[in-house]
């Protein structure tokens, strides 16, 4: 698990909106109106000034500067007056943000909204034919499809997690050590496949998945890793739980997992949440699994590793249609690097699972780590491509 629970929900819940691409860029002094060149927007409390009212269609960039005293927003709205093609929000006074959209020829409206209320300051904007970039008219539909598919995947994994946790908790509470040990890494894979979702609940995640080092003084050690310790640690320095203690921990896992599953099914995703979640899973692998820190007692890190990768790949596959025609190269690179990592991981399959982390040699760990980095780097480019 991550050291902190709140960063992912930021991406998931406070996501950037379905079609908006906000990225903060340095203030631009660009005044040119060359085809496709950035258009500078100055938003004051009373005015919204653009350096051009027309440019060619395709990839269009606006450098929006807040020259006013209130928080402002900038929108590009389609001719029907309803559909937001792109938006950038939360620009503090004096700050600049960039908006990049892919849009076809036609009539549009730009809108600055100082104070983030009311109808804002609007004017007409035209995109002429002569594209510098391909425009897929069905982009919005593709984005909706991706989100829907991923939502189904999350629901499916969440259900499996709830069922598996029940089974595991029962075995543990009953003192069936061998059965609990066998179930442990397999059931956890359902958690790890949707880890960014599970982690987005800052109240439940520590109860269910905190590692011992993550706790602060006085905080109770509960959940998966508490049980892991009890199942695997055998030396004299550790006192095994009593039957009553086991029951209490097991009950807590079941109750909290149930709550988590019901909440997970209610999350409304955006495409950037999918891509950020996918990248987040690779980060999980890079910081916790490939270093053997996650499963300190059971050493079943490779199960988590594999599940993280599966979750990341599912999100990527759902988003892949959005790269078609806009960034085929990134699509090909990611496809190839996912395959390479999966192939490498397959070498360590054993029975229904994987070899223990402690059975890996230093060279093998380094090889896995390099493959994770090789995938993680291009994966970090995915969000900016799919939100267009």
């Amino acid at each position, binding site marked *: 698990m*991550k*050291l*902190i629970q*709140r*960063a992912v929900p*930021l*991406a998931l819940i*406070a996501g*950037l909106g379905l079609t908006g691409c*906000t*990225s*903060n*860029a*340095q203030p631009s002094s660009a005044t040119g109106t060359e085809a496709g060149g950035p258009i500078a927007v100055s938003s004051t409390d009373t005015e919204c000034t653009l350096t051009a009212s027309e440019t060619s269609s395709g990839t269009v960039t606006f450098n929006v500067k*807040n020259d006013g005293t209130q*928080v402002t*927003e900038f929108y590009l709205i389609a001719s029907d007056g309803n559909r937001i093609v792109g938006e950038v*929000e*939360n620009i*503090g*006074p*004096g*700050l600049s943000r960039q908006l990049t959209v892919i849009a076809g020829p036609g009539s549009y409206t730009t809108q600055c909204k100082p104070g*983030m209320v009311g109808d804002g300051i609007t004017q007409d904007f035209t995109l002429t034919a002569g594209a510098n970039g391909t425009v897929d008219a069905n982009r919005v539909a593709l984005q909706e499809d991706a989100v829907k598919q991923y939502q189904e995947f999350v629901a499916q994994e969440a259900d499996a997690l709830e069922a598996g946790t029940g089974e595991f908790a029962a075995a543990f509470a009953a003192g069936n050590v061998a059965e609990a040990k066998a179930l442990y890494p397999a059931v956890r894979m359902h958690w790890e496949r949707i880890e960014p979702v599970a982690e987005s609940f800052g109240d439940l995640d520590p109860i269910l998945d905190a590692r011992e*080092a*993550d*706790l*602060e*003084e006085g*905080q109770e050690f509960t959940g998966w890793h508490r049980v892991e310790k009890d199942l695997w640690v055998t030396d004299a320095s550790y006192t095994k739980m009593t039957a009553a203690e086991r029951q209490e921990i097991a009950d807590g896992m079941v109750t909290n997992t149930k709550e988590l599953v019901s909440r997970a099914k209610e999350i409304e995703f955006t495409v950037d949440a999918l891509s*950020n979640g996918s*990248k987040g899973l*690779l*980060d999980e692998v*890079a*910081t916790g699994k*490939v*270093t053997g820190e996650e499963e300190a007692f059971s050493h079943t890190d490779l199960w988590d590793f594999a599940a993280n990768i599966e979750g990341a790949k599912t999100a990527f596959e759902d988003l892949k249609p959005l790269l078609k025609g806009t960034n085929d190269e990134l699509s090909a690179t990611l496809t190839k690097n996912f395959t390479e990592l999966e192939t490498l991981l397959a070498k360590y399959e054993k029975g229904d699972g994987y070899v223990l982390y402690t059975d890996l040699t*230093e060279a093998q*760990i*380094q090889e896995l*780590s*390099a493959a994770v*980095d090789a995938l*993680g*780097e291009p*994966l*970090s480019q995915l*969000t*900016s491509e799919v939100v267009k």
Partner: protein
Amino acid sequence: MAESTAGVGRRKILSALGVGGVGLAVGAGGVLSAQAVTAASQEEPAVADTVPFYGAHQAGITTAVQDRLHIAAFDVTTDSRDELIELLKEWTAAIASMTAGQEVGGDGAATEGSYEAPPEDTGEALDLSASHLTVTVGFGRSLFVDADGKARFGLKDHLPEALIELPHFSGDQLESSRSDGDIVVQACADDPQVAVHAVRNLVRLAFGTARVRWSQLGFGRTSSTSTSQVTPRNLFGFKDGTANPKSEDEAVMDEHVWVSGAAGGSAWMNEGTYMVTRRIRMTIETWDRSSLAEQETVIGRTKKTGAPLSGGEEFTEPNFELAGRRGPLIDENSHVALAHPSRNNGVRMLRRGFNDTDGSDNLGRLDAGLFFIAFVVDPRTHYVPMQTAMAKNDLLSEYLRHTGSGLFAIPAGVSEGQYVGQGLFEAA
């Protein structure tokens, strides 16, 4: 010699003697006489590259932060109180020499000593200037009592209450070989070789009395302690220490840094302070893969100018109330929000940390981070509550791992003829 040479470094002394490089200096067996120094002072205007060693407070705390660090913690290996005091005396003399840009010991590095004996000074700083070297010495809790609470060196009754054992913070992955220690020595300079030279010579003087427990090199100060300094950047590429208190603000130093009014057994701490050290590993690679939007959200400031996300410029006061589309523009768990005095009962700490890199780890990842150093009047009020909140909530914690930790009592400064920590040992 000490007073009159202020501002004159080794390089100038040597060039005044007409000696070019190190090799020549050794060959010529040049004598650094007071006369030569005076001549140098007259020929060239002194460059202010020494920091006075003697004073009410130790140097290296409110001193404008130099760019390089070599910090070392020692475990005292002797049981003899006299030997410990003797070491502190030797160290004090050596520190006074080195910070003045001079060699350690009467015979120096390559001059008047026996040809058959190793030189007293190790010599690698010979042709370098004083580089604003400061050396700051402090005492860990373990110098006063051992792990079982048993007195050491008769100091137990003088253990200040504020010199606590730090609690385990959420996410701590501390390594004992990078934590704690009986004595700490912080050497800071503009030139890394000068800082390393200082620690190396002190280590040498300590053999048989104390041994190094851990040490760390740092480069690139990560905060400014003076209004004359621009705000530097940490290894995440963000300006760090924008809101750090500045040493020119004496009222803030008196309230938040310098101990006063300590009575009884810990009266020796007056004019001193407490130093918190934390070795913070940064997961550089995953940070570099996070979007600029996430990076800025985590920090609460823009990367380019350091302006708070609530608007304005670098030194504009953050507005934590200013609402955006989905909650405050500055996330309440951003680094800037959690570190701000308004969220910490108004307490402030004088941060004086450094970037650090120990090459790469076994996975080829940069073993890099921030060596956090802060000076506070009382760690119980000025560090523990803030770190507790940050370890738990700071969005930045996801990219950090605390691997080393230390807390040291920094005694007052010394005047000529005294040794560092004399107040403690004479009180005892």
